[in-house]
């Protein structure tokens, strides 16, 4: 039996509370009735059709969270990011959380079937719900499948604002996800654990990708250098010199931040050639976080 790393009761409670504030009472009654039926072991079809029908009852407005809600969320499940959800996503998640979970095999089979017949919005809701689901280590290949999706919305649902990949992906799956984020034009800063999961193989993949982009005379996202900095070698420093030479200020800032992360004296020397940037990094004014917020 796997460990539950999330307090389901609280996730359920808080989702239900938010919905009670934001959808019509009749819709909430419908939802509660379906949750009851599902939790009491109603035939699979009840779950599937209710799951699909959710937006007909709830609409698709953005979920509105207060500052207190944000704080509560972090306590319930670190990294969970419902602040970017819509009300139908929240309601669908509640339905998934109503499924009986004791019989792992049956539970996982139902989940696999609902993934297998899901539309875009349903896939987004399911992948974003991963951090709340029991048997987390059983969802690795499903999550990797989401990373392979050609639908950016679905890819983003796994990769961005989701603690699951950093916690459960091996390096191979992780590295593919980060590289693909750049490839499809998604930002890197909403990837949770982007700094913690940096590794030399990923750094090399990213550098190779930058070279490919340059060869094709295409632009390179400055965020590419974020997981690279701490693994700089002499060749990388040559690349960073090229990034410094880019007229765009964000490119220079990214190069400076990458240098600042490197233990190499040569990297520090390169950074010293840009005293303004070096100063703002030392003063804590320029960080990858501040960089992402202004980007």
């Amino acid at each position: 039996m796997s460990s539950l790393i999330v307090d389901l009761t609280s996730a359920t409670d808080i989702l239900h509370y938010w919905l009670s504030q934001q959808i019509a009472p009749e819709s909430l009654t419908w939802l509660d009735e379906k949750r009851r039926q599902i939790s009491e072991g109603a035939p699979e079809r009840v779950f599937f059709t209710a799951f699909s029908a959710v937006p007909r009852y709830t609409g698709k407005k953005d979920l509105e969270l207060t500052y207190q809600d944000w704080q509560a969320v972090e306590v319930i499940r670190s990294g969970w990011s419902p602040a970017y959800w819509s009300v139908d996503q929240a309601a669908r998640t509640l339905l998934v959380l109503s499924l009986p979970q004791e019989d792992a095999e049956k539970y996982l089979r139902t989940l696999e079937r609902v993934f297998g017949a899901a539309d875009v919005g349903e896939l987004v809701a399911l992948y974003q719900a991963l951090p709340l689901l029991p048997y987390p280590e059983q969802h690795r290949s499903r999550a990797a499948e989401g990373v392979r999706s050609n639908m950016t919305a679905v890819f983003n649902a796994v990769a961005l604002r989701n603690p699951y990949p950093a916690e459960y992906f091996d390096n191979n799956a992780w590295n593919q996800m980060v590289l693909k984020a750049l490839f499809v034009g998604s930002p890197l800063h909403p990837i949770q654990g982007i700094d913690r999961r940096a590794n030399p193989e990923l750094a090399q993949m990213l550098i190779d990708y930058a070279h490919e982009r340059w060869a094709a005379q295409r632009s390179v996202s400055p965020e590419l250098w974020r997981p690279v900095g701490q693994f700089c070698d002499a060749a990388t420093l040559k690349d960073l010199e090229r990034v410094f030479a880019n007229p765009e200020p964000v490119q220079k800032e990214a190069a400076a931040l990458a240098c600042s992360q490197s233990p190499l004296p040569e990297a520090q020397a390169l950074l010293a050639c840009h005293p303004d940037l070096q100063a703002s990094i030392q003063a804590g004014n320029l960080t990858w976080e501040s960089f992402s917020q202004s980007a």
Partner: protein
Amino acid sequence: MMFIDPHIHLSARTTYDYMVMRESGIVAVIEPAFWLGQPRTSVNTFQDYFNSLVGWERFRAGQFGIRHYCTIGLNPKEANNEALAEDVMELLPLYVCKEGVVAIGEIGYDDMTQTEDKYFCQQLELAKELDMLVLVHTPHRNKKAGTSRSMDRCVEQGLDPSQVIIDHNNEETVEEVLSRGFWAAFTIYPHTKMGNARMVEVVRQYGCNRIIVDSSADWGLSDPLSVPKTAQLMLKRGIPEAHVQAVCYENALAAYSQSGQMQEQDWTNPPAIDQRQMFNGNTILRGQKPTVESGRESLLIE
């Protein structure tokens, strides 16, 4: 002018088509579930097809600023494989209630066999039970009799004609369809269905009430710009603009919005979540320069 193409098989089309469709003013499309040009051999390929109608194709259209809806059903050709048809009927309830599924369709007759009739009636029953609209495919051969019988079956199953769209009409079928209160859709498809000059005359004669123009563009010799081209021809040949607007936009919207799954603000003012997820950050809907253009004039491939 904004256009809706309420019958087009986009799975068979390229992204280039999406680009020129959007440039020509098409803002929304409906993709009815049909066959693929050759019969399927397994229910799993139906499931993958349905998945693409509610997933990948919806997303792909969104990248070009076009709203994509679909209809789900077992088409009459493949209904003839009874073992497979049974499996598909089992699968339908999983898909028909999904977001953006505006009708059960396209269903009806191909060879008018008993098996076709059986699954047509079962699906009409499902539509009645779920209070859904129906899109009827009328047969290529024996069209007049097939159209009459399709409408008979709808009435027998207790469906309201205002909730049924009869498609692929021609000069021979239109009168009965309109007089019985159904929506009459016309497919502008070279050689086998309607030509657009004929369509101009149909609208001149019957007016614009409950008449809908579509392309049914698919993997055959067809034209994804049938709707805007027909609109242009109608204007050129003296059909009042209001009538053109009705048959190339408003009537399709009125018919299919009865489903509760399609409304004008889906493309004029989409929900924030859809703007984030379905339109891939593009700005077409806000009337700005599209992020992708067909680039017909350029030799450069960058």
